[in-house]
């Protein structure tokens, strides 16, 4: 395993794909903070205090796509160019090969997050001054959640990248999965966040408007709410949304769910890879 990791890290250091994605993350972090600075100038400090935090964590919303691209291009090349065969005849166990891919993917995902957050912090400090620190809520649970999300994405995208010899197909499938997860996560979170009551303005006989609270038809109740809550807890994108929301507090269920899912996906991938005939 150590030999595999050291070989892959050396390759990683020279990988255009890896550094290209890291650069994209850095640019994304800079752009997010530049946008936050622009909005602060137009909308005032209060806007920064309520929304600045989510701009800092914006990279997490795109984490799935970065992991998918990294896995498909970097790890997928191992399989598609046949280098995986060289490792097998060199006596490496399939389990080690798979776990090495998993570790690399998770590590790269965390590195991409850092690549976005560090420039973002620097830019924020320069553009917004000390007000930035007040806007941020860097609670440790948020970073633990980021770790759980990255582990989940690594476990998910390792599957096609390692098991599919066709790199292009693995890439398309990974990006599709990332997109589906993002849309589904945003949808479940949106539905759950719908308020129970909504304000309605009722026209009175004297021409004035009366403001009254009425039940919101979009509000989920009963079994539907339970299903959506479960889906939300299982969604990496929903957890990323929670991480990026300053008002959210720590809930242990979603990260634990994601870790369990990552474990299951890894077990599934390993079981298939152990039996797979490699051409």
């Amino acid at each position, binding site marked *: 395993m150590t030999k595999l990791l050291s070989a892959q890290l050396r390759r990683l250091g020279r990988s255009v794909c890896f550094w290209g994605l890291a650069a994209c993350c850095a640019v994304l972090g800079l752009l997010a903070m530049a946008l936050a600075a622009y909005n602060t100038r137009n909308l005032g400090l209060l806007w920064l205090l309520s929304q600045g935090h989510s701009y800092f964590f914006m990279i997490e919303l795109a984490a799935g796509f970065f992991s998918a691209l990294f896995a498909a291009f970097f790890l997928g090349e191992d399989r598609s*160019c046949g280098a995986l065969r060289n490792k097998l005849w060199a*006596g490496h166990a399939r389990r080690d090969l798979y776990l090495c891919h998993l570790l690399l993917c998770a590590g790269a995902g965390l590195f991409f997050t850092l690549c976005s957050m560090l420039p973002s912090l620097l830019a924020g400090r320069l553009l917004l001054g000390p007000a930035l620190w007040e806007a941020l809520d860097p609670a440790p649970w948020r970073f633990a959640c980021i770790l759980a999300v990255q582990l989940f994405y690594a476990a998910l995208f390792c599957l096609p990248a390692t098991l599919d010899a066709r790199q292009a197909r693995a890439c398309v499938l990974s990006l599709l999965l990332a997109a589906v997860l993002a849309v589904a996560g945003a949808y479940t979170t949106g539905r759950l966040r719908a308020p129970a009551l909504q304000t309605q303005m009722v026209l009175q006989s004297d021409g004035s408007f009366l403001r009254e609270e009425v039940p919101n038809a979009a509000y989920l109740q009963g079994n539907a709410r339970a299903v959506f809550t479960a889906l939300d807890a299982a969604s990496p994108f929903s957890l990323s949304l929670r991480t990026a929301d300053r008002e959210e507090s720590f809930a242990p269920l979603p990260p634990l769910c994601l870790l369990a899912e990552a474990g299951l996906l890894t077990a599934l991938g390993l079981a298939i890879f152990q039996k797979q*005939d*490699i051409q």
Partner: protein
Amino acid sequence: MDYVLTTDKLVKSYRGFKALDGLDMHIPKGAIYGFVGKNGAGKTTLIRLICGLQEPSAGGFTLYGIPNRRRDIAKARRRMGAVVETPSFYPDMSALENLKQQSLILGLPSFTGLEELLELVGLEDTGRKKARNFSLGMRQRLGIALALVGDPDFLVLDEPVNGLDPQGIVEIRELILKLNREQQITVLISSHILDELSRLATHYGIIDRGRMVKELSAGELEAACRKCVRLEVSDTRPLARVLDRAGMEYRILSGTAAEIYAQPKLSQLAAALSREGCELFSAQERDESLEAYYLSLVGGGHD
């Protein structure tokens, strides 16, 4: 005799189709083992099994005496190098970078000897050129160089001269011979280019439809190959009549050429042919080739 690789009733099935059907094979230490068979006979499947790319459906094999089901088969695999079908390498790296990468995969302590390895396979002048821009011959050489990282003592080459130009074929052949003679590397080389194989191999395994048809040494093959006399005549029809009357076994090759599996008295044969109005132009003694021997064992038809 010491064997590097033996297989015991090895079976590999793919959805009901048996690519290997009870294959028994024995590769002696120090041999260049020519693995001969048609396309689809099961040559590459066997190589994939040995390399750990696939698992046998039944039966087994031993590599350096270690059965494939034991965990330490991985240790035995570290003593081998392989090129399976197409050479595998990272296309965005140079030849030297690829060798360094393989060194790390093998856990070698340093990169010493890699330049010499490039020199050995004739890739010393490729510099920083990326492997994706290599010609087919250069790719084959890089594949062999990768297989040689870590000084293996068993080299598995699957169709190593496929797609090479004549000069490339000669160079690869000389390289294999050099490795076998100077470094005592045992080589398993699969090919359907029989003429090429006959210039290299010290042992042969002839496979057909997943079964070993015959295993023999080069000496045994030489003894098994029948002597024949190749005749060039003006017309093979009168020749056939004369040979039939003489009760000789023969094979008509064309309208003017035939092979006789006997030692005819040429003066008598020429006189008999002359009476039939046929002229004898030349007679040449030949050994039956590996190709003819192979065809006599497995037949000339296609699957």
